[in-house]
């Protein structure tokens, strides 16, 4: 018998969600910095000034929210490199130096401000939290392509982060809220198995989008099976490159603009990723085929670590208690929710007692 362990996966996704404290931090600190920059005379931004991007904006954060990325809009012409990328990044770093005082911090111990290749990073030491502030030229506002500075290339690079956020939302709606869960599992798999040489989160998101859009993943299957298919798809796709001996790494297509986002992927890092994929797909395949539920759980724990629960009785009880007939609602695709979904035409599940058969599984 195939064990999809669907409630276990529901609990796993709950386990890898960021804590409410970290989410609150991710809500409040960026807003303070955004407000500071919007009112700053030294570094002039253009309305609508800023926009959240990255994992947090995509609702794809797993584990701790360590960082939040946001764009600040400046005037300029990327074609003629005006203003120069180095000027913008330097001026932004300089403007942010007064941020600690503005936020009421004194001394240097709580803050670290670093200029990166494409952003200025503000590290809140005490909170162990980073903000990546990315200046951008957004000719048609944030909804369209924008240009971000690249210190190494000394030019403005085209990017479409809000388009990616929209695409993720569309895929999640199309696949009945399963897409984001799949990507979160993939990111958690990486975090669980790779401390060093990790592929970037954005690359994982791009890989997952490509895999799902290729129709090689059957998104009508339970998320356990979809995850197994994702690992197999990626391993097969990159296997030919993996066998090469000339140091080649695969291209990872930007979901919106098509360019290679993994241009700086090192061969040794790619090989490490392939070894983890090979291990992962071995465990997930055996877990799906295993006749013994306990053994299947152990194999999934190899994939996802201790966050994959052994026993879900308490979770099942609370999940069921919040979705009883008489109080639950069903969305047009059948999702059972604890209450009405304002954005959807959900239907109340009338009170009922399921009839006959067996009570608690006993005939």
């Amino acid at each position, binding site marked *: 018998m195939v064990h999809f362990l*669907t409630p276990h996966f529901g609990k796993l996704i709950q386990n890898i969600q960021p804590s409410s404290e970290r989410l609150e931090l991710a809500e409040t600190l960026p807003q303070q910095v955004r407000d500071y920059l919007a009112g700053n005379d030294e570094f002039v931004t253009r309305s609508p000034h800023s926009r959240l991007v990255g994992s947090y904006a995509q609702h794809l954060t797993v584990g701790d929210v360590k960082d939040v990325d946001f764009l600040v809009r400046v005037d300029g012409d990327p074609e003629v490199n005006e203003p120069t990328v180095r000027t913008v990044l330097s001026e932004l770093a300089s403007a942010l130096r007064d941020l600690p005082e503005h936020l009421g911090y004194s001394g240097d111990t709580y803050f670290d401000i670093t200029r990166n290749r494409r952003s200025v990073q503000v590290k809140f030491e005490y909170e162990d939290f980073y903000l990546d502030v990315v200046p951008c030229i957004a000719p048609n506002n944030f909804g369209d392509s924008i240009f971000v500075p690249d210190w190494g290339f000394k030019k403005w690079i085209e990017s479409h982060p809000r388009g990616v956020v929209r695409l993720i939302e569309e895929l999640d709606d199309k696949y*009945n809220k399963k897409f984001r869960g799949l990507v979160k599992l993939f990111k958690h798999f990486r975090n669980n198995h790779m401390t060093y040489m990790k592929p970037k989160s954005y690359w994982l998101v791009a890989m997952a989008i490509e895999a799902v859009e290729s129709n090689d993943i059957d998104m009508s299957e*339970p998320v356990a099976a979809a995850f197994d298919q994702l690992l197999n798809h990626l391993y097969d796709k990159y296997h030919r490159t993996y066998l090469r001996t000339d140091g080649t790494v695969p291209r990872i297509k930007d979901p919106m603009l098509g360019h290679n986002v993994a241009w700086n992927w090192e061969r040794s890092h790619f090989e490490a990723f392939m070894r983890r994929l090979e291990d992962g797909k071995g465990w997930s395949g055996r877990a799906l085929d295993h006749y013994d539920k306990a053994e299947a759980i152990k194999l999934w724990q190899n994939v996802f670590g201790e966050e994959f629960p052994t026993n879900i009785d308490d979770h099942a009880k609370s999940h069921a*208690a919040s979705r009883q007939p008489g109080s639950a609602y069903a969305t047009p*695709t059948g999702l*059972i929710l604890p209450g009405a979904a304002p954005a959807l035409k959900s239907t109340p599940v009338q009170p009922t007692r399921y*009839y006959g058969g*067996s*009570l608690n599984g006993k*005939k």
Partner: protein
Amino acid sequence: MARNRPPFRVERPLSMAVQELHMRDRWPSFTRVGNAGVSVWRGNLQPSEVSGEYGISVEYRLGVPPNVRVLRPKLLKTPPHTYPGAKLCLYSPDDWRWDEHSILACSIIPWTAAWLLFYELWLDTGKWLAPEAPHNENKRVA
């Protein structure tokens, strides 16, 4: 001369066409084949964000309690609250009776989606975590 009207208005049963309108409105994946007397709706339901989709059929003969079956995937073990052939027992006749004014889209289908959720929880825990009524409670068959 005006015809005498009956002292009360006789409500006509909900037609298949009206049932279909409700189904289209609330459950867009379901499609119908049949006629004014008997119809079968087939569609998909996914009870949670991590579940797979279940193929469901609802067979309805006008005025008669509908039969609901899980077409795919095959149900595992022998779940509670089923008749042979993967037919689901969604309500106790002690509590509620199907009549010709009942609306599939507002009763049978949401109960089916919830049944699938509790079935998945039952597979993992061995417990049916929703209200239930045993067959032998009143010796009647739905």
